[in-house]
Structures are given as C-alpha cells and as structure tokens.
C-alpha cells in the first residue's frame, strides 16, 4: 500500500504491517495531515474521491491523472472555505482546488465541534443518556432521543404503549417541520434571499413554542425516554396542533411563491450540484439528498416504525438530483408532515404515555407521597437507572437529514457499553466532492447548503 505523505514528508512509508505492540498505534498513519494535499502527493483512489469521480472510475476504468482536471498544478490553487465561513452552517471546512472559478477537487475537513459524545454516553446511565444524545443534531433533537430510546427498548424487549408511540410520531413530525423551516431560512440566506431567514425562523418559533409547552424546553427536550415519553400532552394540545396545521400550508404557499416562482433563485439552484442515484447510493447518502436523485427511499415508508404504518402520506422523490430537487423534496415533505399531523389529531389514542414497568419508568408524582414502594422505585430509577440485558442492536429512523442510526451494545449493566450514533449529515457530507465537481465557487455555497449539514451531529 502506498501512503501519501500529505505533501509534508511527515508520514512514514512503512506499509501496513509495522505495529508497535505497546501503544497499539499504527505508525504509518496516526499523524497524517487531514488537509488536501497536492495532486502528486495524493493516492489515486483518494484523488478520484476528491474529484468526485469514484463511481465513474470504477465503472469505466477512468484514470484520474487523465481527467479534465489537467490544468497544470501551477495554474490551480487550493483555498480554504471555512471553518468560519457563514454559509457552512457551523464549523465545516472545505478545501477546494480551483481552476479560476471552477471547482476541481473538494475535501471536507471536520472535527471542529467534536465533543466526544459517544465516550460520554458510556459514562451515563440509560436514563441520563437521552439528555446527552439530544444535543447532537440540535435542529432535530427529538429524532436523536427517539433513536436512542428505540435502541434501548429493543435491548430491553419492551414496547411502549400506543399513546406514547403516537405522541412520539406527532412530535417527530413537528420537529421535521421546524427543521425544514430552519433549512428553508438558512438556504434562503445563503442564496441571498435574506427575508426568507426571518420567515423561516418565524415558522420554526411557532413550533418551538408548542414543543416548549409540551416538553418544557425549546430545544434539547429530553422528552422521549426509554419506555415512553416524559409526560402526557398538555390540555388543549389539539388546538395548538390545529393552529399549526392551518398556518403552515398558507406559509408554504408563500415559500413556493418566493422561491419556486422566482427566476433568480431558480438560476442559482437548477442544474447545480447534480448527483446521480448510483453515486448517492454508493456514497451512502440518505434523506432528501437521496430522494432528490429519484430514489424513493424513506424509512418511514420502507421500514415503518412508530405509527407511520397507519398514516397516509406520500414519499416525495426528485428527478434531476440537483439543488432545486432537494429544495422541492423538502418543501413537499413539509406538506406531507402537515397532512400527517391532521390525521394524528384524530387518531391519537388514549391510555398511558409510558410503559408501566416500575423498574424502567418512574411512578407518577402523586404515588410517591402515598407509597413507600413508589418512592423507592423513583429513587432507584433516577440514581442507579435500570439494567439492560446483554446484547447489541442497530435501530434507524428517518430524521429530517436522513437515516439516523444507533448501534447500542449493552453488557448487562445500567450504562451502555457502546453507543454509536450514525449521523446522517456526517455521511451525507461525503457527497460534496461529487456534487461540487465542475461547479463554480459561488455554487459551493448553494450545494453545501442543500446537503443541510448540522455540525453538532457531524462531529458528535
């Protein structure tokens, strides 16, 4: 195996067998540069990947040194976009090799927001865990909690009662609406439609106000917990949801007019950042990015969880796989979410909002004053937590950004042995080189925005 030296001559060329047993380090690789290096210092596969040519290279035996990147390296330049660039939605750093204004190669450099949440999860009990994971994807916290809770329940072998399931479904769809509104807002901002920033956040605020009413917090709710949800819905929730369902379609019409009917916006997004369905699948892209390319894959429909099987909704897929299709898919998904919310207000069952297993969920507050046993259970759940049988499971749900998965390993104690979160935008960001190849530098903003990365979940 040939290792690139990152243009710095720092890496040893020792191949793949020289291990030092004491530390377990791999000497050939542990100190490599993460930046983009010169073309001559990059291995072939990596060059293909950075040039967004991987699929073509595999299929047609394409030689990357032959590619029309053949502007000599003395005529191109490698520039940094980010990590503080306002259109990178946080701290995403793109390294771009440019020929004039055309992007030849892209490399994403991430990790600026890494806080070791998977390590932290191993130190927290299953009861505390939801508080931790909810901070990963801060635009759709409920989906993080959901996937964590579902993985825990899978290992416990319990099913939450129907009302808990329906409350979860409803909150997740509301969360999808607020997340997509935020995306509309920031995407508009990135493309110069500054007023959209205010409209999108107005709609988001409406949902967050309702979520605050239900969960007590605007963000990072810690509301979906193993065994069910933290509390029942407040009185009069039907009216609030009905108000949201009445307002949103009107507002979506406005967005449609503001974006779809506007030539300046369409010029910026049509035919920009095209990714083929084969490439999207190969790069493990999920969510609106995959559906925008015409792959009608939605976990809510294809591998149903929660109450989605009983709801009537359409899976929206694009045709051309460009930025406009990804915008259109999200806009249509918001309409579908409203459609689902209307059905849920009618179908919401009555009953318990959490599993009645006293070892897993705390007893009602009122019982603690009357029953010694309830007091003990309450104390035990919040101090020691509950023990989860040995095992491992992978659970995935459809978040606004794509498949968010949780691979949970338990060794029989009250803390996860390993809690790995598969972040959808961490994976989706790998599609950037393919979409950016041959685009103009100004389109890089539109394309990055169309992926909808949330750096809190990319870096975890």
């Amino acid at each position, binding site marked *: 195996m040939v290792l690139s030296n990152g243009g710095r001559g720092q890496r040893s060329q020792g191949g793949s067998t020289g291990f030092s047993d004491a530390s377990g380090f791999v000497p050939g690789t542990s100190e*490599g540069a993460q930046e983009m290096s010169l073309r001559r210092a990059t291995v072939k596969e990596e060059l293909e990947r950075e040039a967004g040519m991987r699929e073509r290279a595999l299929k047609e035996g394409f030689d990357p040194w032959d590619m029309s990147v053949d502007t000599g390296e003395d005529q191109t330049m490698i520039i940094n976009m980010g990590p503080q660039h306002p259109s990178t939605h946080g701290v995403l750093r793109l390294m771009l090799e440019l020929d004039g204004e055309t992007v030849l190669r892209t490399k994403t450099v991430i*990790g600026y927001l890494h806080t070791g949440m998977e390590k932290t999860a191993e130190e927290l009990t299953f009861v505390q865990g939801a508080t931790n994971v909810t901070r990963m994807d801060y635009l759709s916290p409920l989906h993080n909690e959901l996937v964590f809770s579902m993985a825990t329940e899978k290992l416990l072998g319990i099913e939450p009662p129907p009302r808990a399931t329906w409350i979860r479904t409803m909150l997740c769809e509301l969360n999808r609406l607020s997340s997509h509104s935020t995306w509309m807002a920031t995407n508009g901002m990135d493309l110069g439609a500054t007023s959209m920033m205010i409209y999108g956040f107005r709609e988001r605020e409406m949902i967050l106000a309702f979520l605050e009413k239900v969960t007590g917090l605007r963000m990072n709710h810690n509301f979906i917990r193993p065994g069910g949800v933290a509390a029942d819905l407040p009185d009069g929730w039907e009216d609030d949801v009905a108000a949201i369902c009445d307002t949103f379609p009107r507002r979506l019409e406005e967005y449609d007019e503001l974006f779809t009917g506007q*030539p300046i916006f369409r010029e910026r997004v049509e035919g920009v950042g095209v990714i083929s369905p084969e490439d999207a699948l190969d790069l493990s892209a999920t969510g609106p990015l995959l559906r925008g390319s*015409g792959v009608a*894959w939605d976990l809510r429909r294809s591998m149903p969880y929660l109450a989605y099987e009983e709801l009537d909704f359409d899976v929206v897929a694009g045709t051309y796989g460009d930025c406009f299709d990804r915008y259109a898919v999200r806009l249509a998904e918001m309409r579908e979410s409203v459609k689902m919310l209307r059905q849920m207000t009618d179908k919401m069952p009555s009953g318990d909002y959490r599993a009645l297993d006293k070892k897993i969920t705390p007893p009602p507050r009122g019982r603690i004053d009357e029953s010694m046993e309830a007091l003990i259970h309450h104390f035990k759940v919040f101090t020691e937590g509950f023990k989860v049988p040995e095992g491992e499971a992978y659970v995935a749900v459809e978040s606004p950004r794509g498949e968010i998965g949780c691979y949970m390993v338990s060794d029989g104690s009250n803390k996860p042995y390993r809690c790995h979160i598969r972040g959808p935008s961490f994976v989706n960001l790998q599609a950037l080189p393919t979409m950016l190849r041959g685009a103009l530098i100004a389109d890089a903003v539109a394309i990055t925005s169309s992926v909808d990365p949330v750096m809190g979940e990319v870096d975890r």
Partner: protein
Amino acid sequence: MEGELPGAAAAASGPALEPFPLVTGETEIGPEPDPAAFGALLQQSSGQRVLHVPRESYFSLVAALKNAGYEMCADLCAVDYLASPNRRLPEGVSPGRFEVVVNLLSLCRAARIRVRVQVGESDPVVDSIFPLYSGTEAMEREAFDLFGIHFRGHPDLTRILMPEDWEGHPLRKDFGIGRVPVRFKEAPGRR
C-alpha cells in the same frame, strides 16, 4: 407578471439535464450468499440478522452481499471489548479485543444485515471495504481515529474527528476520560 424574465430564458437555453429514472427498488435480485462458504455464522440478535465472519473472508463476504442486492453500507463502526472479555458469542467465533461492525442495507429487499468481524489486539488490521462502498471512507476513518484500527487499502487513513497531533484513540476502553476538576471556591478578590 407578464412576459418572461431574462433569467428564465437563460435557464431554458442552458444545457438540458437528463432526468434520472425513479428507483423504487422493485428489481430482480439474486439469492443471498451462503454464509458457510465464507466461514461465517448467521445469528439472530434482538431479532436482527447478524453474520459473524472471520477477518480473512470479511471483504469477500461483503462483496458477495453487495452483489446480492445490499446496495448501501448504512453504517460502519467499531467496538472495544476490553472491559467485557466474556461476552456472549456463537460457538466457533474466537473473540478478539475489537470488533468492526458493518450495517448493510438493501433497498430492494427493505432489509438490513449486520456483519461483525473480530479484530485482535496485537494487529488491529482489517480490509477496507472502501472499494465496494465509497460511503465508508469517513466511517472507516472515524473507526481508525477513535479505536486505532487500521483499514488495509483505505486511500486516506487519517484522523477525522480528533486533531492531527492527538495521541491515542479516545474510544478505547483503556483511554481514560479527562476531567477538569471543578473548584467550588469563592472567586479570588481583585487584589
């Protein structure tokens, strides 16, 4: 608004895009590969299908699964079993300190399958499946960064989440969590 705006005319005159065919996943698929041919064991874990495969035939098994309709590698991660040496494994699988866990997804079957590979402590090397699924690039780098597992054939195995000059691999069980001691003292005065 009457008449076309100049922008719209320009958009119409640009190079026309080819529409992609809608992929609904209703395609002809071959049978799943026989695990025994790869020395692998099929097991049910929490109702999910898991394949335990030896390191030597890991790559060829994943390649066979890809050919059998598993179009996407949904997730790849590693686990360090240092603190849990007596874990439950099917008979015939000799435990290693690390485990690489790959979750494959088949769109045409609407099914998942998990592949678990045991990786020893003394030579934590496993074949990279980047040649099969390009989407594993970042996932394998993450597993390398946090566990120190080397993926043979990966084009750019560098740290991805931790800084370049970081020492050690933080998700290993023998890597302690750093704590900044909290001081509950009155703040010192100005003078």
